[in-house]
Structure formats: structure tokens, C-alpha cells
């Protein structure tokens, strides 16, 4: 449809725009490889001409346990979120429970509540229960970021599943749970991936709950690892940026593996009608 030269011009513009947008990411990589003595050089080296891996060695020495905790908390949050959100989404989309509209409104409102307010409430409760600085307390708190979003994604997605598919399963004698488990969930794979992706990323990158609820525990997440690093040695920026690079790896991997779902799933418009 478009002429070839027109297309090439757009590709060039697109490349320039992408380069501009991703410059900070490049800079993080560049600084992570810059030797300590060149850190405050003017002009700064725009390319890692003398790359060093001191920063990454520091990550291996100091930050591995934090990464492990984040992985644990992230996976736990995904499991909890799916467990709550998928059935609820099915119910709201297809079973129409009494008060479903009010529940939907509550979920919308729940997403408007600032994390810092939730953190303060959780702090009081966890203090009473002795849950402060525990990894599973952190899972519960982190899941509050993802659960309302998850329910809304599942609801939107499952509304698009043809009623005939569910009716056919009914006629074959399947109960509601059976229908949900063997028909609705498999068809909703895109929504499952989307919700898992985001609940993992949000838990992985959570800072508010980590800093308020898990400041002194043995199992601290990587966000706190970086934050403490900045506080303790704001000289070794190559180590700080190396940690930042490593902490970004899950995001990068997930983006590569699941970019279709990121783009398509966010708006839950993935079902073709």
C-alpha cells in the first residue's frame, strides 16, 4: 500500500525515536561497565571503552540473596493473585452474582488507593500479628497491587468468551467448576499470562511495601538491596547501576517472551468477536 521509500523513512524515524526513548536504559548499562576512576570524568565516556566488571562482581557478592527473595515474593504474589482473580473474574463475567456491579465498582476504587496508605494500615496490622519482616507478609501486601487489576482483566477477557461455548459444556453435563476449569481457564490463557506477568513485575519492583514492612528482616527484596546500596555508597555508581541492570533482567526476559501478551492483554481486547 505504502511506497517503499515512505516505509523506509518511517523506519528511520522509528529507530531514532526508539534510541531517544531508550537512552536512559543504555546509560544504565554504560555506567554499570564504567571503571570507578572514570565515573566523574568530564566529558563522560559515551561508550564503555574500557569496560570493567567490578560492578557485576559486587552484585554477585552482595545482592544474590536479595534477588532470591524477590523471586520468591514475585512467584508467591502471582499464585495468590491468580487464585483469587480468575474465579472471581469468571463469576463477574458469566455467572452474574448478586452485587456484582457494586463489587466491580469497589475494585475500580481499590485501584485508586495509594500504596503508601495501604502500607501504613498494613504496618499496624502486621505489627500486631508479628508479621513484620516476613516474606509471606510481603506477598500478601504485594498482592493488593495486582488483585483488583487481575479481576478486571479476567472479567473483561471472559466476557468475550462466547456464551455458546459455556452452554455446550453445560449440555455435556459439566458443573460450574468443571466448566471453569476445563473450558474457561484454558481459553483464557492470554489473560492468565497477562495477569501473571503484571503481578510478578509489580511484586518484583515493589518498593513501598518492602521499605515499610520488610526493612529489617533477613529476607529482603532486591528493591531494598538497591536502595541500601545507594544510601551506603553513593560513590560506586557502577555497582549501583550493575545491580539495577540485574534487577531489570526479569522485566527484559518477560518482555521478550511475552510481548504479545503485554500489548494485547493490557486492554483485555484480545478476544476476537
Amino acid at each position: 500500500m505504502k511506497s517503499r521509500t515512505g516505509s523506509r523513512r518511517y523506519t528511520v524515524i522509528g529507530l531514532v525515536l526508539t534510541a531517544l526513548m531508550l537512552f536512559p536504559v543504555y546509560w544504565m548499562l554504560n555506567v554499570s561497565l564504567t571503571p570507578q576512576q572514570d565515573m566523574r570524568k568530564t566529558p563522560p565516556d559515551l561508550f564503555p571503552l574500557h569496560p570493567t566488571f567490578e560492578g557485576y562482581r559486587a552484585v554477585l557478592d552482595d545482592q544474590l540473596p536479595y534477588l532470591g527473595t524477590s523471586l520468591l515474593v514475585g512467584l508467591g504474589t502471582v499464585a495468590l493473585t491468580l487464585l483469587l482473580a480468575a474465579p472471581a473474574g469468571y463469576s463477574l463475567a458469566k455467572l452474574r452474582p448478586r452485587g456484582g456491579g457494586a463489587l466491580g465498582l469497589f475494585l475500580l476504587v481499590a485501584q485508586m488507593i495509594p500504596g503508601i496508605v495501604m502500607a501504613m494500615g498494613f504496618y499496624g496490622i502486621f505489627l500486631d500479628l508479628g508479621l513484620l519482616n516476613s516474606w509471606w507478609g510481603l506477598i500478601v501486601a504485594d498482592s493488593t497491587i495486582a488483585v483488583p487489576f487481575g479481576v478486571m482483566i479476567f472479567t473483561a477477557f471472559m466476557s468475550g468468551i462466547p456464551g455458546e461455548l459455556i452452554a455446550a459444556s453445560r449440555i455435556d453435563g459439566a458443573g460450574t467448576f468443571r466448566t471453569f476449569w476445563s473450558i474457561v481457564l484454558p481459553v483464557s490463557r492470554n489473560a492468565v499470562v497477562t495477569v501473571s506477568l503484571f503481578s510478578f513485575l509489580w511484586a518484583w519492583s515493589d518498593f513501598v511495601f518492602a521499605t515499610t514492612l520488610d526493612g529489617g528482616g533477613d529476607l529482603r527484596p532486591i528493591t531494598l538491596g538497591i536502595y541500601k546500596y545507594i544510601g551506603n555508597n553513593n560513590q560506586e555508581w557502577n555497582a549501583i547501576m550493575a545491580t539495577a541492570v540485574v534487577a531489570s533482567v526479569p522485566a527484559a526476559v518477560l518482555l521478550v517472551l511475552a510481548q504479545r501478551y503485554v500489548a494485547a492483554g493490557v486492554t483485555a481486547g484480545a478476544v476476537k468477536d
Partner: protein
Amino acid sequence: MTIARVDRPRRASAVVKASGSDSPPPRRHRRRGRLAAFAFVAPLIAYLAAFYLYPLYRNLDLSLRDYTVRSFVAGDAPFTGWDNFQRVLDDPTFGPALRHTMVFTFVSIAFQYVVGLALAVFFNRHFRLAPTLRALFLIPWLLPLIVSASTWSWMFNSESGVVNYFLHLFGVDPVGWLTSPDWALTSVIVANIWIGIPFNLVILYSGLQNIPAELYEAAALDGAGAWQQFRRITFPLLRPVSAITLLLGLVYTLKVFDLIWIMSKGGPGDASSTLATWSYQLGFGTLLPKFGPGAAVGNILILIALAFGLLYIRVQRRQEA
């Protein structure tokens, strides 16, 4: 032009409404259906009560009592009614924090939306590498905030930052981005816009995908240029998607805390403090926490968020009617 009104894309509004449209089940299944429907949402309802309503109640309780570190543990803080709110409203930080919150939110959203829309329209064209480049645009949004925040901190560093280096190439004197009270708020807004652009791009792009190509072909036949097509077709048909994009932007931006806290701690002084960072500062930022006032600031922030939320819901209802 009437096409816009007649041919509103269905899926775009389904995104907003997120509700089913099938016919009700046959009557004899209804009673059992009701029970199953409830059983499937019951865990969610229990969860929301325990981990949303109860923390919110605790926070409200916190804001109505005079808490110290000791009474926080013992749980015998005296009830003081609206004292904390009065203290917070009288505090010299309140005015600036409220103003910064508003500026941060509206400036961020305006730029994110405009840039996101421009990029969405751009990527809606077919050219080589378009899908790949679009995917790469998502990176800033998927990165942990602490990563973006510390990267921007270093880029904005007064002496060794790369931003000042580039400015120097254009003959501009170095700016104390995060150390000068005049620039701190701008700096965190710039970083926040960068983070928010991908989100706007994704949602608006998917909205564009739902606009039938025939409309553009017809418009092109009628001799409409690119700008005409944007103004008469793209923008009006995108309105429902724009509404949800802006609402979500508002909701997320109003409560941004980590980015600002990590980059500037709300400083220097309170030059970049918002209600969210101030609330954290009061409750957790010092050795002598003021939980009551901190919770009060948090509750004021909730009220503001809800006000915008209700406004949105009203607008949405009117659009659907």
C-alpha cells in the same frame, strides 16, 4: 461528520465497561447458578475485607488517634478526633505538597498522553521493524521504578550527570537538577513522563487498532488529509479509550511515591514533596515517626483520588447513555 457516532467500535467500549452481554441462563438453573456465582467470588470478597477494608480502617483509626512509638505497640493511643487533620492542614508543608501533587499529576499526564498518542499514531503505520520498535518502547514501563529512579538520579547529577553534559554541548550552563529547589520538581516530572509514555502508547495503540480501516479509506477518497483524518476520525473514535487512559494515568500518578522518594526524598527542603512522599516522611521517614499525621495526609490523598474517580465514573456513564 456522522460516521463517528454511528460506527463507534464495540470492543473499545467493552474495555471500559468490562461486563458480559449474554442472555440470562434458563430459569431452572437460576438458584444453583446464584450459589455457584457467589462461591466463585466469595474468596475475593473475604480477601478484600481482610486486606483492603481492614487496613483502610486501621489507617483511619491511626489518623484519629495520638500515636507514639510506644502507644503504637501497646495499642492504647488516646482518641483525638480531627486533631491530626487540623495539625496537617495547619502545617506549612501542606500547601506546597498539595500544589506539587497537582502539578506533578497534571503535567505528567498531559505530556504522557500527547506523546503517547503521537507515538501510537506513528506506530499505527505499516513500516519495517514497527512491531519490534513498539515492543522496545515498553521497556521503561516494565523496569522496576527503583531502577529508573536511580538511573535518572545519576543522569541528573549536577557535576557528572550526562544531562548537564548534553546541555553543555548546546552552551547551556549546568543545572542543579535535583539539588536546586527550582528544578527538583521538574526533574522528577521528566522521569515520570518517561515512565508513563509506554503505558499511554500501548492503550491508545490498541484503541487505534479497533478503528475500521474503511473509514480512513473513505475519508481519503473524499480528499481528507492526514490531519483531517486525525481530527475527524481518529480522535473522536478514540475518545472512550482516551478517557480510560487518562483516568488510569490520573490514578497511578496521583499516588506516585517511590520515584520521587528515591530521586529527591521530596527535597531539597520540600521543593518536590507531594502528599504521598510527605505522608511517608511523617510515618516512616524519621526516627520519631508521626503515624497519626502521616495517616491523616494519606486519607486526604484518598479523598482527592476518590473525587477524581467519581468524576470519571460520571463522565463514563454519560458517554454510554
